[in-house]
């Protein structure tokens, strides 16, 4: 109790600075912190810790590199409908180098990156957007005369944390789709060590933001799965929490776009939805803060599996997904319930058993009834 009180007083005292910095009301700010705590699956008590961390004037320096990509990840961060999100993105972190957003150009921009790296050596967060071409010594992507490989290695050397945002940076994404003419590779492959990945095309901004705030709050990156994806966001199949899941279990499927089933919101599995083999929290946190239904499957399009290596950009969009761990068990109700059948063989077998039992019993009784009494144990047909 007293701790909470202290935290609140502390927060309240520190708040004017945040208010000035972010241009937010306190209510809006706390809502934002609560949303982040919820995204990460943290208890309500973490909210205060997050608020304290975010309020600190010292924002972590972030260097944001762009390689082979479409800038969709950045766009999704900026275009989030939450009214203050883009402000928070720019103010919670100190975005010192970002080719899309920075006003500087040319050598001036490169100088900003160098100075940020020097000033925050060992403390800055490196965010990489886009795949890195590795073929022919990486000449297919150059910024300021440097190849993507060189830039990445240089920036990663002194970074406190490396986060690969988007599918391209996570495993190569769309640019790595066969025949992969540029040898597009992931951040982890180029650096030769695992990094935190936030795959998605684009990824949900909250997943990225929550990862960064986790780093701010706890001084370390969140727990990740074997592909480097934060577990708070990527530990469940899309299928598990899908709002159309009940239709799947009941065997109600949209068979083509615009048919009766599609219009009634049936399961999109047969249209190629990759929800059953894709790990992501899309159905629970949705996109763009626009309310229910605001995610691909909610709008009637099958999931393309953009967060899953080997699924997104690899499998045809309308190809049937592999059911990863939800092959319906035999105990699930079938679509058409059989009302009972009987086979001739079973009837014959039952009749044979009944006949043999009756016949055996009758013969036994007859033999027993003979006056000779207990002398004839001649009943090899039944039981004994």
């Amino acid at each position: 109790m007293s701790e909470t009180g202290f935290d609140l007083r502390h927060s309240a005292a520190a708040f004017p600075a945040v208010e000035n910095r972010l241009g937010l009301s306190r209510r809006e700010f706390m809502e934002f912190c609560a949303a982040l705590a919820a995204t990460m699956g943290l208890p309500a008590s973490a909210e205060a810790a997050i608020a304290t961390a975010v309020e600190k004037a010292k924002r972590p320096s972030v260097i944001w590199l762009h390689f082979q990509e479409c800038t969709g990840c950045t766009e999704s961060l900026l275009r989030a409908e939450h009214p203050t999100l883009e402000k928070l993105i720019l103010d919670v972190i100190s975005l010192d180098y970002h080719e899309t957003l920075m006003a500087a150009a040319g050598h001036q921009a490169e100088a900003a990156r160098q100075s940020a790296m020097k000033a925050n050596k060992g403390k800055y967060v490196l965010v990489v957007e886009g795949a890195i071409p590795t073929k022919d010594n990486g000449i297919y992507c150059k910024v300021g005369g440097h190849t993507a490989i060189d830039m990445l290695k240089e920036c990663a050397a002194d970074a406190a944390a490396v986060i690969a945002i988007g599918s391209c940076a996570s495993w190569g994404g769309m640019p790595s789709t066969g025949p992969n003419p540029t040898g597009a590779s992931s951040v982890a492959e180029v650096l030769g060590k695992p990094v935190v990945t936030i795959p998605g095309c684009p990824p949900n901004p909250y997943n990225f933001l929550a990862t960064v705030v986790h780093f701010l709050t706890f001084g370390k990156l969140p727990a990740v799965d074997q592909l480097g994806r934060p577990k708070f966001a990527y530990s469940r199949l899309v299928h598990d929490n899908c709002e159309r899941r009940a239709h799947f279990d009941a065997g109600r499927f949209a068979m083509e776009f615009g048919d009766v089933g599609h219009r009634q919101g049936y399961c999109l599995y047969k249209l190629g939805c990759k929800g059953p083999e894709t790990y992501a929290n899309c159905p629970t946190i949705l996109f763009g803060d626009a309310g229910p239904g605001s995610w691909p499957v909610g709008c009637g399009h099958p999931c393309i599996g953009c967060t899953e290596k080997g699924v997104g950009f690899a499998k045809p969009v309308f190809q049937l997904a592999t059911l990863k761990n939800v092959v319906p068990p035999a105990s699930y109700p079938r679509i058409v319930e059989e009302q009972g059948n009987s086979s001739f063989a079973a009837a014959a077998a039952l009749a044979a058993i009944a006949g043999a039992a009756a016949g055996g019993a009758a013969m036994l009784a007859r033999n027993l009834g003979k006056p000779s009494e207990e002398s004839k144990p001649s009943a090899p047909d039944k039981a004994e």
Partner: protein
Amino acid sequence: MTEHAVSHAPAPAGGRLISPVTVVLAALALAAAVVLACRFVYGLGAVTNINDGFPWGIWIVYDVMVGSAFACGGYAIALLVYIFNRGEYHPLVRPALLASLFGYTLAGVSVIFDLGRYWNFWHIFWPGYAQVNSVMFEVAVCISLYILVMWIEFSPAFLDRLGMSGAKKKISKLMFLFIALGVLLPSMHQSSLGSLLVIFGSQIHPLWQAGFLLPLEYLMTAVLLGFAVVVFEATLVSLGFKRAMETALLARLARFIWGLLIAYLLVRVGDLAVRGALVSAFRFTLEAFWFWIEMICFVIPVWLLAAPAGRSNPGVLFAAAVMLMAGGFLLRVNGFLVGYETGAGWHYFPSLPELTVSVGLIAFEILAYIVFVKTLPVLPAQSATPR
């Protein structure tokens, strides 16, 4: 009393365990095991014909309902010997108890085969999960307890062999308690098996929907079946092990059977008449057909066992016992399957794998009985004079 106790001290029957009969029985039991393995891997739908309209099939109706009723030999004889104090029937107790032991244990285990989510079976015993107002709860707890009680009742037979005479002495001191429970528990759950039908209400054909009399009818037939099974089993054991017939003993038992049978038929037919259900017995339906077969199975033994001459003829006795068993079997199959209707279109007939399991369970029961009788002191030591 003492004379019987001395001359009928149980002893192992001895003899080879591997014979053509045991091999065939083992093969049948093995076939059942294979089907059950499929059932646990692929689910109930893969091997049974049960469906949403008939959520149980012969695995419940035969293996559990009929199986436990057939296993009432131990109960019926214990009732006679210990409650009505008829000590002369004591030689029948151990063999009957053994048959009951297997019958009930297998009936209890069979329930698991039929449970869709068998891994949740323990819920019914667990406070908080169990629905203590349900008939099924009463049946499940009661049958489980009875199986335990029977193993304790039978334990003197194998404790000796295991060299645990100390434990045997202790158990013997408390045996009166278990014997009392062994009579009380079947009275409770055999009647409750009838109560299950009460709940189904109009889904049960009027010929078998006896309402509040169902528990009584099922209890009476359970005792009847128990006696009939004792006669059946004693006859087959005498033949199979080439022992003297216990005809004199069984003939006296048959008098009880006859009296109880008359009482049962009065209740059964009286109930049908009072409810006006007798009319539907004269309609040309499948239910009426099976009703008449069932009634014939109950009525003919009345006639067979009426005269002392019939009762002392082992052939007639055996025939009456088999008919009574068939009657009790049909009463249960008719009530739970033939006369059971949940809606248009649903029907049920057992599949071959289901039959295989039921036959295999019977085979296993007989096989285990043979093994136990040959190796443990169950049957009374053979006396020279045939009784």
